C-alpha cells in the first residue's frame, strides 16, 4: 500500500511550480525593500549622515557632487535609508537587480538614480545558451547563503530546469561559472582551474555582495574582493544573499527571456 499512498499524496499536492515568468512574480517579503534608488536632487543639504551608517563603505561622495552608492557592496541592511532624512536613498521594492557592468551598480550621478538592468547576451551567445545553459557553480569564500538560494532555484517551486538552465558537476560540461563568495586566496587556484576547464565561449555570473566586491569582508587580506579579480564577469547579481527571484531574474534577463514579462510589469505599472 505504501507506493500507492506516496503517489496519492504526491498527486494531491499537485503542481507546485510557480507561474512566473508567464504571470506576475511572487512578491518580495514586505521588509525586504528591493533595490535602492538614490535621488541626488534630494541630497542638496549634503549632510553625509548615510556615509558612516554603511557597514561596507558602499556610500561615498562624488567631490562637489551628490552621494554615490555602490549596490555591489550593499548588504541591504537599510541603515542608509533610515539615516537619510531628506529621503534621497529609497527602497524601490523591485526585485530586478542584475547588471552587465560593475559600474552599472553605482547610483547617484544625474541620470543614474537607479541601477542599469542587464542587457541580454549578444545574438551569437543567445543562440548557443538561450535554451540550454549549463553552469558550474564555484563557491569560494562565502557564507553558504548565496549557495543555498542558488540551489533553491532547482527545487520544484522554481524549477530552473524548465528554462533549460542547470548546474553541472564538471566545468568541462559547463557553458560558464556561477561564482559565489569573496574568493578567498585559498580558492584562487581552484577558481582559475575551473575557469580554464570550461570550453569557450563561456560566461561568468557573480552572485551576491561577496562575489561582486568582497561584501562584509571587503579589504581583508585573506580574500580577493570578489570574482572579478580572477575571472571576467558577465553578470552581477547583488544582494546578501540575493533573493531567489532576483537570481532567476538575472539568469533569464541574460538569456533574453524576460522581454514579455518586462512588458507585463510595465503595463501593470
Amino acid at each position, binding site marked *: 500500500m505504501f507506493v500507492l499512498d506516496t503517489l496519492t*499524496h504526491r498527486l494531491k499536492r499537485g503542481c507546485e511550480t510557480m507561474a512566473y515568468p508567464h504571470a506576475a512574480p511572487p512578491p518580495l517579503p514586505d521588509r525586504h525593500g528591493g533595490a535602492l534608488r538614490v535621488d541626488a536632487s534630494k541630497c542638496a543639504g549634503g549632510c553625509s549622515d548615510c556615509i558612516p551608517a554603511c557597514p561596507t563603505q558602499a556610500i561615498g561622495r562624488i567631490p562637489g557632487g551628490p552621494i554615490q552608492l555602490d549596490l555591489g557592496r550593499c548588504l*541591504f541592511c537599510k541603515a542608509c535609508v533610515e539615516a537619510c532624512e531628506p529621503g534621497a536613498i529609497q527602497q524601490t521594492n523591485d526585485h530586478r537587480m542584475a547588471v552587465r557592468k560593475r559600474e552599472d551598480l553605482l547610483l547617484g550621478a544625474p541620470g543614474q538614480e537607479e541601477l542599469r538592468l542587464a542587457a541580454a547576451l549578444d545574438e551569437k551567445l543567445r543562440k548557443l545558451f538561450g535554451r540550454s545553459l549549463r553552469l558550474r557553480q564555484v563557491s569560494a569564500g562565502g557564507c553558504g547563503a548565496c549557495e543555498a538560494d542558488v540551489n533553491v532555484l532547482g527545487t520544484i517551486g522554481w524549477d530552473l530546469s524548465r528554462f533549460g538552465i542547470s548546474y553541472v558537476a564538471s566545468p568541462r560540461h559547463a557553458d560558464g561559472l556561477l561564482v559565489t563568495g569573496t574568493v578567498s586566496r585559498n*580558492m584562487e587556484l581552484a577558481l582559475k582551474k575551473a575557469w580554464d576547464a570550461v570550453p569557450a565561449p563561456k560566461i561568468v555570473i557573480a552572485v551576491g555582495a561577496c562575489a561582486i566586491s568582497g561584501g562584509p569582508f571587503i579589504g581583508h587580506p585573506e580574500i580577493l574582493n570578489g570574482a572579478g579579480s580572477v575571472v571576467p564577469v558577465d553578470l552581477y547579481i547583488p544582494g546578501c544573499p540575493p533573493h531567489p527571484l532576483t537570481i532567476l531574474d538575472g539568469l533569464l534577463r541574460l538569456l533574453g527571456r524576460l522581454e514579455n514579462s518586462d512588458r507585463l510589469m510595465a503595463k501593470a505599472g
Partner: protein
Amino acid sequence: MSTSTAFALLANGTCLPWSEVPESSLAEFLQATRSELDRGGRLCSWFGVPDGDAVRLVSIVGFDADNTLAAARSAPIRGGYPALTLTHPQAHLFERELWEQHGIVPEGHPWLKPVRRIAGDAPANGEFFRVDGREVHEVAVGPIHAGVIEPGHFRFQCAGEEVLHLEIALGYQHRGAERALPGGPHRTTMFQMETVAGDTTMGHATAYATVLEALAGTEAPLRAQWLRAVALELERLANHTGDIGALAGDVAFLPTMSACGKIRGDFLNLTAIICGNRFSRGIVRPGGCGYDLDPDRSSRLFEKLAAALKDVEQAATWFWDAASVRGRFENVGTVHASQGAEIGLVGVAARACGLVRDVRFDHPTGWHRFGQVPVAVWPGGDVFARARVRSLEIQRSGQFLKEQLLAPPEGEIFSELPPATPDALAVALVEGWRGEVCHVALTDSAGKFRRYKITDPSFHNWTGLALALRGTAVSDFPICNKSFNLSYCGHDL
C-alpha cells in the same frame, strides 16, 4: 560541585573580570584541564592570548550536567608544551589551531598540520596521512564538489571500495573572520558575525550579541530574547527540513526530496516575514533585535508555520515508512557514543550517538531559561540516527514555536548597550541547528576586543564525519556527509 582552584566557574552568557580568571603555571594549568576533562568536562574552547612575545593559554570547559562553565588561564609561555591530544583527542584541532595562530607547539601531537592556512597554492597541497599496500588506492575529492556546496578537500585511503581512512583538509573558505576582531567591535563586525556561517546566522549573531551584552553587564530586553529564540528555531526547522530532503535525494527517494526542498523554502520565508531576509539578517543587534514581530505579522507567521509543519510531517512520514530508506540508513556511518564523547561531538551528531548534549537544556540562557525545548536523543550513531534526531527536532521546535508565538512577552525590543567592561572575559554558548556555537571575548583596558574566539559546531564535528566513514564504502560518503551536513566557512572562519 567542586572544581580545582585552577578554574573559575561562570554561567553561560556572563562575564568575569580577567583578573578573576585564575592564572596557574603551565604544568598546573595543563594538569587541571586534564583532570576536569577526565571528570566529564567538555572542551568548549582552547586558545591563546598574545602577551608581548609570549602567549597565555585559555581553557573553557563545559560541565553540562551541572549547567556551568569553567575558565582558566596559564602564565605566559613560549615554545611548547606536552600536547593534551595524546590523552584527550577532543583537543586535537584546537591544538593544531593554537600552533597555527601563535606558533606554540603541542609536543607529541600525532598529526600537527595547519587548520586553515595555505600550503603552497591550496590546503590540499599539504601532507596527508597515507595507507600503504599493493591493494590500497587514494581517492581525492574537492575543493570544488559536484553539487552547489562549499569547498573542501577529502582524501580517502581505500582498499577496493572500503574506506580505511578519510582525511579532511579545509581552509578554502578562510576569510579572516576571527583575525579581524581584535580592536573591535568594528562597523562591519555585526555583519561579519551574521555571515560566519550563513545558514547559522541566528546562532552566531545571538552568541555575539550575548557576549557584548554580558560585557556591558546587562541583558537584551525579554521581548528581544523571545524573538531571538523564535528565529533560532525557525533556522533549525529550515535546515533540518533541507537535510531530510537532501538525505532522501541521496537515496533516490524523490517524493520527500521534492517536498522538503520546497518546504525548506517555506520556513526560510517565515524568517523573511520577521526581517525581510531569508537568512535572518538584521534580526539580532547587540542590545536587542532590529525588528519587532507585531501581532499581525505574528499571526501570519503562525498560520504559515502550522501549514509548513503539517507538510513536513507528511513528507517525513513517507520517508520513514519506506523500508528502502531505512535499510539504506541503518548501520551506515556509525560513530559510537564512546567515540563521540572522546572527540567532543556536539549538537545533532552527538545526540544521535545517545549523548545528551544541548545548550538549550544544559546551559540555558536568554529565553531558554523560560521556554524549554525537550532534548531529542537517539542511540545508534548511524545515518539513521542522525536523520531521526532531525525529524524529532522538527516536531519539537515546531511545538515550541506554536506555544511561543501565542504568548509573546510585552515590552521593548531594543535598548542601547552601556560601554563594555574593560579587562573582562565573556562566554556565550548557543545551540545552533548543527550544535554548540561558542563565542569567547576578552576585552582590553579600553573595553575593546583584545582576543575573540569563535568555535562553530563544525569545528568539533568534522572529525566525526571522518570516523563515520571508516569501514564503509566510498559510495556511502554522500549520505554520511549529508547526515552531518557540516559548515566549511564556520570551520574556516
